[in-house]
C-alpha cells in the first residue's frame, strides 16, 4: 500500500521569512526519496507540510491526485518519525504504540495483537511493558518507528531519525528502514544531513536550498553532475579537494583554470561564461594522483573504502590517490586529471562544461 505524493508550487511563509518557495515535487508510489540540504533549506518544513503540521501559504499538496492541504494530520494517514523521537513521556512502550490504534477506535484485543506482532518484527517485543524513559536511544527510535507503522500507513515520513543516535547504532536501524520498505512497499520520504544514509537508502534524492528544489535525481547523478557547490561537497564519499581559482580563456575555445601556480586546461567550454571570472572548484580525490619525487611532502597515508589515499602538502594541500612507491614523509608530485574538475560560480551554482567536438587539448 503506497501513495503518490505531489507538491505543486507549494510556498510556506513565516511572516517575512520564506520556508518553502514554489516547491514542486512528485514522488511516485513506493519510492524511497531522500531529502537533503543545508540547515534552513526547508527539509523539515517539507515533511511537516506533507504531514499537515504546517500550513501552506499557497500551492497544492496531493495524495494520489487528491488535494489534502486542508486536511488535518490525523486524516492523512501518515506515519512520522521525529529526530527527538516524540514518544509520549511517562508511558510504556506498549501504550505508545497502541495509542494511534485506540485513537481510531480499534478494539483493544485486536490492537494488542497488532502491537505484539509489529514489536516482534522491529525487535522490541521484550520492551513492551517498560517505560519509554528507561530504554536506550536506539530502542526509543525503534519504538517511534513502530508507532509510526502500526497503522500501516501508505506514506512514511522520517525527519533525521538517526541524528540523535550514536554512530554505532545507526547501521542496524538503517538496515531496518531498508527492510521494512522492501516488505511493506510504502512511500518513504527521508530527511537527513548524512550523505552516507542517502547513498545507502534512497532511490532518488531531492536537494533543497533556501526553500527551493535544486536538484532531483539518483545519488550517482548528484555525484557526477552536482548542481551546486553544496551538493558537490555532500555527495562525495571520499575526501574532496576544494578551492578557489580563476577561469580564463587563453585562446578562443580553449579555457583553463588557474589554481595558484597550476594551470588546468579544461576539456571543453564552460557554459554561460564569457570572460575571466572567479570560481570555486571541487576535485575528487580519485582525480588527483600522488607519485614519489617532486617538491611536495606526504604528510600521511590512509586507507579509505579500499583505496590508499595520501595527504599531500605543497603549495596547497591535496587529498590524492597514493601511487606505488609513495610513503609517508617522502617527497611527492601531484598530477591532476583536469576533466574531473567541477566548477561553481560564486553563488554556488554549477558551471557545466560542454564537450566541443573539435576541442584540441594542449
Amino acid at each position, binding site marked *: 500500500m503506497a501513495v503518490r505524493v505531489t507538491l505543486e508550487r507549494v510556498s510556506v511563509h513565516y511572516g517575512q521569512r520564506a520556508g518553502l518557495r514554489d516547491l514542486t515535487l512528485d514522488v511516485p508510489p513506493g519510492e524511497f526519496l531522500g531529502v537533503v540540504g543545508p540547515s534552513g533549506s526547508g527539509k523539515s518544513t517539507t515533511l511537516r507540510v506533507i504531514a499537515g503540521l504546517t500550513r501552506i501559504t499557497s500551492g497544492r499538496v496531493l495524495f494520489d491526485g487528491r488535494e489534502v492541504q486542508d486536511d488535518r494530520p*490525523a486524516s492523512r494517514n501518515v506515519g512520522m518519525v*521525529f*529526530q*527527538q523521537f516524540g514518544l509520549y513521556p511517562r*508511558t510504556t512502550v506498549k501504550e505508545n504504540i497502541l495509542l494511534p490504534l485506540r*485513537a481510531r477506535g480499534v478494539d483493544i484485543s485486536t490492537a494488542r495483537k497488532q502491537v505484539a506482532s509489529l514489536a516482534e518484527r522491529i525487535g522490541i517485543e521484550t520492551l513492551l511493558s517498560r517505560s519509554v*524513559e528507561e530504554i536506550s536511544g536506539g530502542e526509543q527510535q525503534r519504538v517511534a518507528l513502530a508507532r509510526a507503522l502500526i497503522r500501516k500507513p501508505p506514506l512514511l515520513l522520517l525527519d533525521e531519525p538517526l*541524528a540523535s543516535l550514536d554512530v554505532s547504532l545507526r547501521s542496524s536501524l538503517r538496515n531496518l528502514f531498508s527492510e521494512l520498505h522492501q516488505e511493506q512497499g510504502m512511500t518513504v520520504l527521508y530527511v537527513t544531513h548524512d550523505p552516507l544514509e542517502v547513498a545507502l537508502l534512497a532511490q532518488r534524492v531531492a536537494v533543497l536550498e533556501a526553500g527551493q528544489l535544486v536538484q532531483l535525481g539518483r545519488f550517482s547523478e548528484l555525484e557526477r553532475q552536482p548542481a551546486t557547490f553544496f551538493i558537490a561537497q555532500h555527495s562525495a564519499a571520499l575526501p574532496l579537494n576544494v578551492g578557489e581559482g580563476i577561469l580564463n580563456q587563453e585562446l578562443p575555445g580553449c579555457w583553463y583554470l588557474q589554481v595558484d601556480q597550476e594551470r588546468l586546461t579544461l576539456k571543453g567550454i564552460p557554459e554561460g561564461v564569457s570572460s575571466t571570472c572567479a570560481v570555486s572548484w571541487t576535485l575528487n580525490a580519485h582525480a588527483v594522483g600522488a607519485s614519489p619525487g617532486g617538491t611536495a611532502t606526504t604528510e600521511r597515508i590512509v586507507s579509505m573504502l579500499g583505496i590508499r589515499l595520501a595527504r599531500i602538502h605543497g603549495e596547497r594541500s591535496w587529498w590524492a590517490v597514493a601511487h606505488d612507491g609513495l610513503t609517508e614523509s617522502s617527497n611527492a608530485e601531484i598530477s591532476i586529471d583536469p576533466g574531473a574538475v567541477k566548477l561553481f560560480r560564486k553563488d554556488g551554482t554549477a558551471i557545466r562544461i560542454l564537450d566541443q567536438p573539435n576541442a584540441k587539448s594542449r
Partner: protein
Amino acid sequence: MRSKRFIVGALIFVAFAFVWFGPAGWLALSSFKHRIDLLDWNVQLKFSPTLNNYRGAFAHDEFGTHFVNSMLVATGSALAAVIFAIPAAFGLSLRPGRNRLLFLFLSARMAPAAALALPLFLVFRSVGLVDTLLGLTLAHSGLSLGFAVWMLKGFFDELPQSFVDAASVDGLSIFMTIRLASRAILPGLATTVVFSFLFSWNEFFISMILTGRRTSTVPIAVLGLVTPAGTLWGEVAAIATAAIIPAIISMVLVRGLLARGLTFGAFREAEWQSE
C-alpha cells in the same frame, strides 16, 4: 583546601540556620514547655517536655475544627484551581502569542488583599456565602487559578515539539493529548498543587473577612488568641507550630519533586529545529 571550604560552609550553615530557622525553631521548642518553664530563663533547653499545650489547644481552642477547616479549604481550592488551570495552561502553551492574556492571569497575585476581600465580602453577603467553607474555597480557588495557569503553562512549555506533533499525526483527540501531557509533567503538576495549597493555607486577610466563628481557619484562630488581656503563649506556640508543619512538609515535597527533574530524560536533547 577541601576541608577549609567545608568548615566555612558549615559555619555559614549554622549562622543562617540560627537566623532563619532559629525563630521558628524556638517557637516550636516553646510549644513543648510547661507554662512555668516559658517564663523561667534558667530553664532554656533542659526542660521536661509536655504536650499540655497541644492538648489545651484542642480542648478549649477548638483547634481541631480550625485545622480541619484549613485543610478542607486548602486542599479543595488547590485541586479546583489546578483542574481548571490544566486546559487553559495547555491551550496557552500550544497557541502562544497572547502574552497579555498570560499576564492577566498572573495579575491576581499582584492585587492588594483588600481589593479582593472587600468586594467579595459584599457579593458573598448577598448570596449568603459568608462564613461558609464553600465560599472561602471558591474565593481561594479563583485566586489560585491565575498563578496555577502561569505555572502549568511553564511546565507544558517544556514538552518537546515532537510530542505535540506526534499526537497530531497519530490522530489523538485533544482530551487524550491533554491527559498524556498532564501525565508527562506530573512532578510539575504536583508542584503546582502544593503551591496552591500553601497559598490557601497561609492566606489571612481574605479568610479573616470571609469567615466567622464557625469556619475560622488556623491563621484566624491564632489571631483570636492573642489578646491584650493576656495570651496563653504555650498554646499559641503549639497552634502556630502545628500550622507551620504543613508548610515545611510542602516545601520539602516541592524540592524533592523539582529535583527529580522536570526534564524528559532522553527527550530533552537539543530541540534542533533542523530544516
